């Protein structure tokens, strides 16, 4: 019977390695310098790239970080350092619920709250949708890593006469900083590949997005649009974009996991 489990392992690893290998092969053959520096070309015209989508993704992630990091980080500090019993329980529960909400549902909510009132799709709305998505992971990892900081450090700081907030800001947070930063990086990486919440918040754009209140292209949405379009040239671009996106996301994950020394994050 163990043979069956070995066969299952071989099957799973085989499928997954094939997928990655195929993606790298297809993506690498379609990737060129133009991809990073040029705008998309009109249908039928060869060449072109996704420079606007790369910049768009970066802008969206910036907005996401501005929204998600303070809430996740300071919320996590509260949960770890000022355990409020009933409040902490409610916040943890809410974070669990938020973590479980399908990302497309978040997109719909943001559409209702930020796109309809303003009257148009925008980078800001897309970034905020991504920011909401990263909150639960940022919150829980911050809390978890602050809890790993030994109490003796807190005691020593208090014994030297530091008020509690100085203890937290100058002693506890620096001690847990490495774990927290990697946690935040992981949460950003998680939302970097999200497509569904951007479909009706940031929409997409064939050109440079002129500002924060205009629709913008992003790598995931471009992959989606190009993959389901009927043009071979677009398919090649989609593979190239997928390879770039995967390299960014997996790169961030590898860095984070190596920094954490192999701690499991599958459940956060």
């Amino acid at each position, binding site marked *: 019977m163990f043979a069956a489990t*070995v066969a*299952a*392992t071989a*099957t*799973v690893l085989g*499928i*997954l390695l094939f*997928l990655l290998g*195929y*993606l790298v092969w297809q993506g690498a053959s379609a990737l060129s310098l133009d991809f990073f520096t040029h705008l998309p070309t009109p249908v039928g015209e060869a060449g072109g790239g996704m420079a606007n989508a790369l910049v768009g993704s970066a802008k969206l992630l910036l907005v996401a970080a501005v929204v998600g990091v303070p809430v996740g980080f300071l*919320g996590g*500090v*509260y949960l770890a350092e*000022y355990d409020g019993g009933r*409040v902490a329980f409610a*916040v943890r529960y*809410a*974070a*669990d*619920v*938020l973590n*479980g*909400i*399908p*990302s*497309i*549902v978040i997109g*719909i909510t943001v559409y*209702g709250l930020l796109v309809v009132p303003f009257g148009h799709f925008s980078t800001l709305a897309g970034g905020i949708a991504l920011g909401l998505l990263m*909150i*639960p992971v940022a*919150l829980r990892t911050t809390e978890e890593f602050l809890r790993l900081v030994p109490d003796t450090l807190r005691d020593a700081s*208090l*014994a030297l006469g530091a*008020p*509690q*907030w100085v203890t937290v*800001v100058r002693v506890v947070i620096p001690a847990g900083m490495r774990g927290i930063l990697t946690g935040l990086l992981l949460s950003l*990486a*998680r939302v970097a*590949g999200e*497509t*569904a919440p951007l*479909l*009706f918040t940031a*929409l997409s754009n064939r050109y440079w997005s002129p500002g924060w209140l205009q629709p913008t292209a992003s790598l995931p949405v471009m992959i*989606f649009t190009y*993959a389901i379009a009927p043009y071979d040239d677009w*398919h090649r671009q*989609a593979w190239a974009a997928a390879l770039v*996106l*995967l390299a960014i*996301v*997996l790169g961030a*994950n*590898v860095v984070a*996991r190596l920094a954490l020394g192999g701690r*499991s994050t*599958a*459940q956060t």
Partner: protein
Amino acid sequence: MPASPMANAGRRAIAFPRLSPATPGVARPQPPPITRETVVPRTRSRRPAPRWRLADTAFRVTALGFALSVLAITGAIAVELFVQSAAARHAFGWSFLWTSVWDPVFSKFGALPFIYGTLATTAIALAIATPLGLGTAICLAELMPRRLGDGLTFLLELLVAVPSVVYGLMGVFVLVPLMRSIGAPIERLLGGIPLFSGPVYGIGLLTAGVLLAVMIVPYIIAVGREVLLAVPQAQRDGALALGATRWETVRQVVLPYARSGILGATFLALARALGETMAVTMVIGNRPEIAASLFAPAHTMAAVLANEFAEAASDVHLAALVEVALVLFGITLVVNAIARLLILGTRGTERARA
């Protein structure tokens, strides 16, 4: 205590044991717990007390505010979905859940085809992914040396991070042609049975289910292995000492012990599969019909949202879509809650028995 091998090799016959800092057996007086009051007595404080107390309060309240905003955001999402779907809820009532006409032109909306599609694709995905994932988890946890298992798990956990749109791209260009060529002979052979009746387009219910299975297998493996590793070694030793083979040990001792945790892992994967949008919408065919065949195009709740929301024809159409989102929200809420309870359950019993 053994002496350090490095210490004066051979010079002295007697190696002195190193003293551990806290000698066992000698009770050290326990200091009273340190609080802010013991450290900085109110009366003798050199700093004016109110100032740092003010800063302390300000910091605490700020952190509390951000923590509470999580609560507010989650609440706002639920309220927003409920309010925005009001028009559809009033127009169709509960029958929205079990009527299967979805016609934006005549403003008649029933969500059954989407609910069916979501449940069917998820069921197919779980039917494939659970045995594969569980088998792999057993292999990684019970058979492999810890190092190798850790390495492979690291690799598999990376796959959790692959964006779903990338899986969708794979699905469109690899899985769909594959399903077309595999499906055709099956249809010729078993086409008489409604479950396998054609035509085989390559896209459809089965393709979406298989793709979902590939996507959730890493979850089941990662969580399943962790749960299996949490089973105390004494349990295995006991079974082996009684003469059980290694497989019997796994089958009759380890798996029952880890049962609720494994179920939790499955539910976690189930929750992921239910809300999965991009990959599914790219390969399922997006047709709101309930067909008997596995090869027929279908639709899911998440997919219809992705496809129709941006170009909803009327207010009722929009409200109906938001109601679909509300239903999806409710289902994932319940499934996630069950998963958490099951996984917490194993951790709880483990702690109790340790």
